[in-house]
């Protein structure tokens, strides 16, 4: 099966897990490995960013949250952004213009993450949730139809951030994931140690940059295969006719993929 098709199946599973509440199952103890609003009427999983803010407000040492996030990070790092997150899926559907990533701006998501924590601490409130575009889609709009929400200032703020994000997604592929997502920032911390990773065989790579043309994150995988922005979607591996790039699931303790990746390029041809 083609990797892109397999990824769509996984993304659909992520979507299903996100909205499994239609079956009548209530909220579970599972922390979602992506950005997904727990206020959504159909959600059965917990938003890690929403939970993190609440724990900051309560002053709770977040053992359970940290254990879960590190586990997710170790398994796939930002692979969850590319393979599982429903909002990432929406980003994919609107990813028409695969422009080159703005390196400095990509650190914006870390600022959003730190700002989210600081705002929760300073205001004792879940400030990020009030502007989160995921909450706009999954909470504000559904609760408007359920008669709980009304068209008021907070609702309009939500719609504003949602429209801004959607426009951003259309102009720049994976705009939210690249520059703003705090969950992406959390998972990005583990991108270089995660079991799911991209490996590059420099001896096979011809530097043709076919991979760069298809990368939704605007990376050049033949040089940035281990970047914190890589969502491990595998689009580059399909585009590489030489098989130099591979998506691998292995422990990276000086394994084969790493040796290959770090081997100097042979010029003898």
């Amino acid at each position, binding site marked *: 099966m083609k990797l892109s098709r397999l990824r769509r199946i996984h993304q659909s599973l992520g979507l299903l897990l996100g909205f499994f509440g239609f079956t009548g199952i209530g909220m579970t103890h599972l922390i979602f490995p992506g950005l997904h609003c727990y206020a959504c009427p159909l959600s059965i999983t917990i938003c890690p960013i929403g939970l993190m803010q609440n724990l900051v407000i309560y002053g709770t040492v977040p*053992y359970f949250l*940290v254990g*879960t996030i590190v*586990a997710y990070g170790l398994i796939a790092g930002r692979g969850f952004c590319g393979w599982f997150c429903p909002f990432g899926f929406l980003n994919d559907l609107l990813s028409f213009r695969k422009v080159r990533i703005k390196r400095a701006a990509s650190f914006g998501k870390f600022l959003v993450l730190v700002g989210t924590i600081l705002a929760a601490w300073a205001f004792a409130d879940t400030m990020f949730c009030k502007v989160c575009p995921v909450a706009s889609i999954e909470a504000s709009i559904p609760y408007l139809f359920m*008669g709980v929400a009304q068209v008021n200032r907070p609702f309009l703020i939500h719609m504003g951030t949602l429209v801004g994000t959607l426009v951003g997604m259309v102009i720049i592929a994976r705009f939210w994931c690249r520059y703003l997502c705090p969950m992406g920032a959390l998972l990005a911390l583990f991108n270089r140690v995660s079991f799911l990773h991209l490996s590059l065989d420099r001896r096979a790579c011809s530097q043709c940059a076919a991979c760069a043309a298809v990368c939704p994150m605007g990376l050049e995988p033949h040089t940035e295969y281990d970047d914190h922005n890589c969502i491990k979607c595998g689009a580059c591996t399909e585009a590489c006719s030489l098989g130099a790039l591979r998506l691998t699931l292995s422990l990276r303790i000086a394994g084969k993929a790493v040796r290959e990746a770090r081997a100097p390029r042979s010029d003898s041809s």
Partner: protein
Amino acid sequence: MNRWWVVFVFVFVPALLPAICAHGQGPILTYTLRPTQVTLAPGGTAGIEVEIHNGSVYPADDIALSASVPEGLSATPQEVDLKELDPFKDGRLGLTLAAGDLEPGTYDLELQIVYTYCIDVSCFQIVDKLPVTAVVEAGAVSSHGPSVAGGSPWRWVVPLVAVVVLVGAIALWVFMRLRVPLYVVLGLLVIGGLGYGVRLNQQEQAQGIASVLCTSCVGIEEARHEVPALTPGAVLALQGLSQDIRLIVFYAPWCHSCPFAEAMVEEMAAVAPRLTYEFVNVEEDRALAATNGVIRSGRTIVPAIVRADGGEVVFGIEDLESRLLMLLGVGS
């Protein structure tokens, strides 16, 4: 002779050591008050929470909280069962302060914590006292105080050690290309974090947070912190209320919109003699919330106000006065 020394060293000392330690370590229970100063409006209520840490090697039993308060204030212990607090564990007790027709000002209260402490067969009743300041001021919105609170700063020692070890492992990876220590530390973080988190029941806390929707928390509406003022038309309508109605106000202690909803109902009841009300914490009585339609699609939505005899649910605080008047059947 040697045999007695062995008995002394290996039996008596270990048996006496906990008692010696317990006796010499200072206070048995330590307390963290939240908040240390309570602000409430005349006629309003406010919650105080006491986090209790047992720093001794024996359990503390039958821990009760009470308060000596000046005339005009009343203190009602919240129904929290703290029959036994095991060594080195934390527990919580709370009480609700209610201000009657008190003049605005600052009042000094004294909380009393009474508990029984037994070392083997010897038991003592111990009374600890904590000073609290209550500020009664017109215009303050009473709150129920935090339901879940932090604790002593010492709880951050283990995470700090973990961070230091993690930084060391990252340094080994970056400077010496050693990945194994980093994987070991990350693996320990997963096992330790999940294991200890589950032991502390943090998964239940997480589920509880996710399953209660506070309307202002996700930006469905704005939280309001002022005392609600009824319009003259509303006062007239409420005074003409022709039947006895009981309102149930569902709240969560951490909800930012709830104090306004509670204060609005209190204001209305003050001018409508036939209107009564009760406040229900949805975290404590989810069944009542379910039977009253406050739970929608598995989410408990707060604040929510319902008539005890049935009818629609009023969620949130947006345009609350007119929606409540409609609920009471006196709105236009």
